[in-house]
């Protein structure tokens, strides 16, 4: 597709369960970003991948959060032992080097 694709679009799960969120970046984009958007808030940076370099994980809020990316393709964000405060929209973006970021439509995560 032409844009950043995220799945699922919505996810409802029980507290304590693990969840996996997926991001398909724009083909050819070397950089991939994950953000969290809590209700009424701006975007919080979580993690950044650039090519084959080690990712910048400085924005991950706890060790329950992790992300992987295979080469310059798909990325998955995993949240283990989910808590209610993890409820948010998780946005993925990709960019070509030194170009503005293009965003997906996000995954709305609700923790019951």
């Amino acid at each position, binding site marked *: 597709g032409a844009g*950043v694709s*995220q799945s699922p679009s919505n996810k409802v799960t029980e507290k304590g369960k693990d969840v996996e969120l997926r991001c398909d970046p724009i083909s050819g984009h070397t*950089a991939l*970003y994950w953000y969290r958007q809590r209700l*009424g*808030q*701006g*975007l919080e*940076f979580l993690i*950044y991948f*650039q090519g084959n370099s080690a990712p*910048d994980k400085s924005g991950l809020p706890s060790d329950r959060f992790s992300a992987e990316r295979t080469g310059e393709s798909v990325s998955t964000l995993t949240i283990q032992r989910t808590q209610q405060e993890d409820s948010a929209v998780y*946005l993925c*973006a990709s*960019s*070509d*080097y*030194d*170009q*503005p*970021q*293009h*965003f*997906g*439509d*996000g995954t*709305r995560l609700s923790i019951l």
Partner: protein
Amino acid sequence: AQSVTQPDIHITVSEGASLELRCNYSYGATPYLFWYVQSPGQGLQLLLKYFSGDTLVQGIKGFEAEFKRSQSSFNLRKPSVHWSDAAEYFCAVAFSGAGSYQLTFGKGTKLSVIP
């Protein structure tokens, strides 16, 4: 620390009226500046960006923004608002490159449009 402030949480304007959304940043040097729009249930769409050069930049959907270094501001404007402009608008800055992962976002301004 770098920060971005959007002072207006919610603005309501009538269709056809002019619009200005405020954005201020704090940083010692000139950042890269962006405005994004987010419609309900959707991701962010880039409206316009400023990297260097002419301080008045034109974007999509008839929006423009002006960078004022002396005021550390990058306000978004539109001369005549359409009902379809109702959305949330985010100002963002990057301090170390246009594609920098260190994008810092404001908390957003929600725009409502009265028919």
